[in-house]
């Protein structure tokens, strides 16, 4: 329950705060949340320190074998406490720092959200949950860095942070998934217990690589260190919180957490310590040369994180203790330094070290606090930084075996120590002394009291820990280190004084050397005249992103533009390959046609005619109207083929559709100026022709081969049961309205929808009158005779359709063509088809009603019935419910065809003559 409270409270507060208007209430909520967390953590501390890990679990992702498990041991407790306690101070600080900002509620909501994510990382008892919270910290930090969003630096900084930490997230996901497989479970406790199995797994190198990428990217280790400097665009409270105490420590936390599982191999030792060392030196040196106050602190953070990483890399139990200790120390002094920098920024309006000078006169209180904190950072004795740095020197000296590193580590430690002293000196000297301020717009003065209080508290902790480490942090440190090690603690001592020994000498040397280096470089403001140093790695990162984006643009540009023909060609090519490969590779023996000298049985030559005109239509030398006429000829020959090959229904439909299509295209052609053909290279020509031939030939071959096959088909059933099952003799019509009536329902829906689209799409043009075929004195009279006859024939075709060629489709098409012709010839709108949409609605409604009527009798949709009632006078009357369905089809076809064709018939009046 307590765990649930700790994990969920920040989220709830974030949710509430985001809906608030008042920054004040939001602050109090956030602050109360932090205080509650600190109190809760304090209350459960004794139990946790005693070694009792708390754990709750709920079922969550059975598919992954993962659960929603929270687990709190001493290591997690320590980090949670850091998150909560520093959070409380930062909230307090931010209230004054950001006073008056309209976005304050959002700020506190985001901070609480981040805190929730961070606590999730710390408390996660399941690898999947851990990865999830890890990603959430990335998102939350992205949002916090982007808090001042339209500002350019914020945008770039946020994006860089998200990209780098996103990379880490991706790597962590991969690592976690493989780790879970290797350990056999995603549960943290089980994973921690199966270190040997994991290290023996063949996937171990992969796991380690991904894991380290995740850790290094989050903790700004080389080569990912650049994002942290960029992230300084965030408001200072964010930097104080995320970039000193929490977010960047998530990586360290992960290193410590999985130390028992992953450490203990050569790979771990070399990679982690090498990266840590490089980062340590790089950050330390770079920090000295920054002109941005926060930049200096950022690089110092990088350097200190490198130090901790290096310590963990040493893979010695005492080094782990030192690492944990330094985590605490760094969090305290760095947070206070960031806050002090924020005060400077706040009061001076700039944090450029070249402008900010001699502030001691204006703000002695802030100055003294900052000087103490900086001294802690530099490792001055009697402050906490000194203690952990001493342990670090000790560890670097204690290294054995690994020769190059054992030799280099103390050296690196020494250089880094000196660099730390140098940038700390610069921080103190360049801000509070070093002459007069340059070009400040206002006179700085002390900040409000409550802004300095958090700094004071943190500095006091630095002092307290530095003076009496064992009583203040001893228990927590021991418990956390024990949890991190997963076993017994090594012997170590937390004391201010260890006597005169080598580490003390190194410390002294570092202090002296550091001050000397700064004095040498910074004399007479020589440092100020150096150009702003390039952010190492950031430019490479930008270049990489740019190159990737260019690559993407090039890729997508290939897809853009007027390349419909390329798309068509791609589709044709893929289809040819997909259908061709099985045929060419398969055991298809080409069945050669047996050419017999049989009599010409009819329509066959018609197909040749069709083929010739298809070729003619392709010719680029004829005008568009001719192409349409050729199409008409092709359509006619197809229709003839249907007629000759026992498909009277098809012949009829094809004929009517052909006429309707030609009519439509002819009407449309007037408004469709056709551009001349573009010249293409011979090569392209040949390619397209080859592809077309392959596609066409392939289709022909497929058809040929398939026609050789005579499988037993389901249509035998349709033929056998057309009469007794569906009450009709025309098997095609019976299939359409009964056996596969559902297809027909969909098909008329398509027709109706297409008609609606065209009708509404050309609505603007429809405002004009319909253009009639004026000038022909014969047409109107002919149409007056034809139209009623066509209607009569349509009725005839509809009524006989179930038994003989005909049916709703053809009847509807005929009626519609008649109506269109009439509208064009007479230029009149008759009332029945003035609203063709009603035909659609009526038709669809009738079809639906007929289909659905069977539901009332407990039969499925579309079940039909038929009968042959014998009526007086009329005799036997064949009735089928499917006929009503067919009538609906008819109505839809009429309406849709009318709309499809007439939509193109509006516009200018015909020129007379």
């Amino acid at each position, binding site marked *: 329950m307590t765990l649930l409270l700790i994990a969920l409270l920040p989220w709830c507060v974030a949710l509430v705060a985001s809906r608030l208007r008042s920054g004040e209430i939001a602050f109090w909520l956030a602050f109360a949340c932090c205080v509650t967390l600190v109190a809760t953590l304090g209350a459960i501390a004794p139990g946790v320190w005693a070694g009792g890990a708390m754990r709750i679990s709920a079922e969550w992702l059975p598919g992954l074998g993962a659960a929603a498990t929270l687990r709190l041991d001493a290591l997690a407790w320590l980090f949670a406490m850091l998150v909560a306690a520093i959070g409380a101070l930062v909230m307090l600080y931010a209230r004054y720092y950001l006073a008056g900002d309209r976005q304050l509620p959002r700020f506190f909501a985001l901070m609480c959200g981040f805190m929730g994510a961070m606590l999730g990382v710390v408390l996660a008892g399941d690898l999947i949950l851990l990865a999830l919270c890890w990603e959430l910290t990335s998102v939350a930090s992205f949002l916090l860095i982007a808090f001042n969003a339209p500002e350019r630096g914020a945008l770039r900084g946020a994006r860089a942070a998200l990209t780098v930490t996103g990379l880490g997230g991706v790597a962590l996901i991969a690592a976690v998934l493989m780790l879970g497989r290797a350990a056999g479970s995603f549960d943290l406790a089980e994973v921690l217990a199966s270190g040997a199995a994991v290290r023996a797994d063949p996937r171990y190198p992969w796991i380690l690589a991904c894991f380290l990428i995740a850790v290094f990217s989050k903790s700004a280790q080389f080569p990912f260190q650049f994002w942290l400097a960029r992230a300084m665009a965030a408001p200072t409270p964010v930097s104080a919180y995320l970039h000193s105490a929490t977010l960047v420590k998530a990586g360290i936390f992960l290193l410590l957490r999985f130390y028992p599982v992953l450490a203990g191999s050569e790979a771990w030792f070399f990679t982690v310590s090498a990266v840590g060392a490089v980062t340590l030196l790089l950050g330390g040196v770079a920090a000295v040369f920054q002109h941005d106050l926060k930049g200096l602190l950022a690089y110092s953070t990088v350097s200190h994180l490198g130090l901790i990483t290096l310590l963990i890399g040493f893979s010695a139990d005492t080094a782990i203790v030192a690492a944990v200790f330094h985590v605490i120390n760094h969090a305290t002094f760095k947070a206070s330094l960031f806050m002090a920098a924020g005060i400077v920024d706040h009061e001076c309006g700039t944090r450029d070290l070249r402008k900010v000078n001699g502030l001691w006169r204006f703000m002695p209180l802030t100055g003294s606090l900052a000087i103490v904190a900086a001294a802690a950072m530099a490792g001055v004795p009697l402050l906490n930084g000194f203690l952990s740095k001493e342990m670090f020197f000790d560890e670097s000296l204690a290294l054995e075996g690994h020769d190059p590193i054992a030799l280099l580590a103390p050296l690196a430690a020494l250089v880094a120590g000196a660099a730390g002293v140098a940038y700390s000196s610069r921080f103190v000297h360049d801000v509070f002394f070093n002459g007069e301020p340059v070009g400040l717009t206002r006179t700085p003065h002390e900040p409000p009291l409550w802004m300095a209080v958090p700094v004071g508290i943190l500095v006091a902790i630095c002092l307290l820990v530095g003076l009496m480490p064992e009583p203040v942090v001893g228990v927590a440190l021991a418990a956390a280190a024990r949890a991190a090690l997963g076993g017994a603690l090594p012997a170590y001592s937390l004391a201010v004084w260890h006597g005169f020994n080598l580490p003390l000498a190194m410390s002294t040397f570092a202090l002296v050397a550091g001050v000397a280096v700064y004095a040498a470089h910074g004399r007479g403001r020589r440092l100020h005249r150096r150009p702003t140093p390039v952010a190492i790695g950031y430019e490479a990162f930008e270049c990489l992103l740019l190159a990737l984006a260019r690559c993407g643009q090039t890729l997508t540009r290939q897809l853009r533009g007027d390349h419909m023909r390329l798309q068509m060609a791609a589709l044709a090519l893929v289809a040819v390959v997909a259908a061709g490969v099985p045929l060419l590779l398969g055991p298809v023996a080409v069945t050669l046609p047996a050419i017999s000298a049989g009599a010409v049985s009819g329509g066959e030559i018609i197909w040749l005619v069709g083929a010739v005109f298809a070729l003619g239509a392709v010719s680029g030398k004829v005008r568009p109207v001719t192409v349409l006429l050729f199409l008409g000829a092709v359509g006619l020959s197809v229709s003839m083929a249907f007629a000759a090959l026992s498909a009277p229904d098809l012949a009829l439909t094809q004929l009517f559709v052909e006429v309707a299509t030609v009519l439509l295209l002819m009407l449309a052609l007037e408004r469709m100026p056709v551009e001349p053909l573009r010249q293409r290279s011979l090569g392209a020509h040949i390619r397209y022709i080859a592809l*077309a031939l392959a596609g066409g030939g392939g289709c022909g071959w497929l058809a040929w081969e398939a026609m050789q096959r005579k499988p037993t088909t389901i249509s035998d059933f349709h033929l056998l049961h057309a009469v007794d099952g569906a009450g009709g003799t025309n098997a095609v019509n019976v299939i359409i309205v009964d056996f596969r009536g559902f297809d027909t329902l969909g098909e008329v829906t398509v027709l109706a929808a297409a008609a609606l689209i065209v009708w509404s799409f050309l609505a603007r043009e429809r405002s004009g009158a319909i253009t009639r075929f004026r000038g022909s004195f014969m047409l109107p009279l002919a149409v007056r005779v034809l139209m009623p006859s066509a209607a009569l024939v349509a009725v005839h075709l509809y009524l006989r359709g179930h038994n003989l060629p005909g049916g709703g489709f053809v009847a509807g098409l005929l009626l519609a063509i008649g109506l269109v012709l009439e509208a064009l010839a007479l230029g009149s709108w008759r009332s029945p088809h003035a609203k063709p949409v009603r035909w659609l609605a009526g038709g669809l409604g009738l079809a639906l009603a007929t289909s659905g009527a069977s539901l009332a009798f407990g039969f499925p949709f579309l079940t039909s019935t038929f009968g042959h009632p014998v009526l007086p006078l009329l005799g036997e009357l064949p009735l089928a419910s499917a006929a009503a369905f067919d009538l609906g089809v008819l109505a839809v076809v009429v309406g849709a065809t009318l709309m499809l064709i007439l939509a193109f018939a509006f516009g200018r009046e015909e020129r007379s003559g």
Partner: protein
Amino acid sequence: MSVELMLAAAIAVLVACALYCLMRGRLFDVIVGITLLSYGVNLFLFAMGRPAANRAPIVPAHGSVVPAEYVDPLPQALVLTAIVIGFAMTGLMVALVIKRVQSKGEG
């Protein structure tokens, strides 16, 4: 000359012409290509129904039916559906092309 050979040849020619038109990159040709393609495809579907002359799938109202004596009615029904859908799509396509061409003229 068998029905099958003629059908296959017709399908080949129609589809080849259609593909060539489609790949020519002119909007008008796309309409022509789609129309030709639908002819070819309809014939293809139709060809799957063991086509032959004088075997229309219209069964006697009374008496027994021997399915082998008729052409396969199912592909015909499918072609019918395809024809109607093709008509609807042609209309749609033409409307879009008109709009496109007009937009070119305006801009």
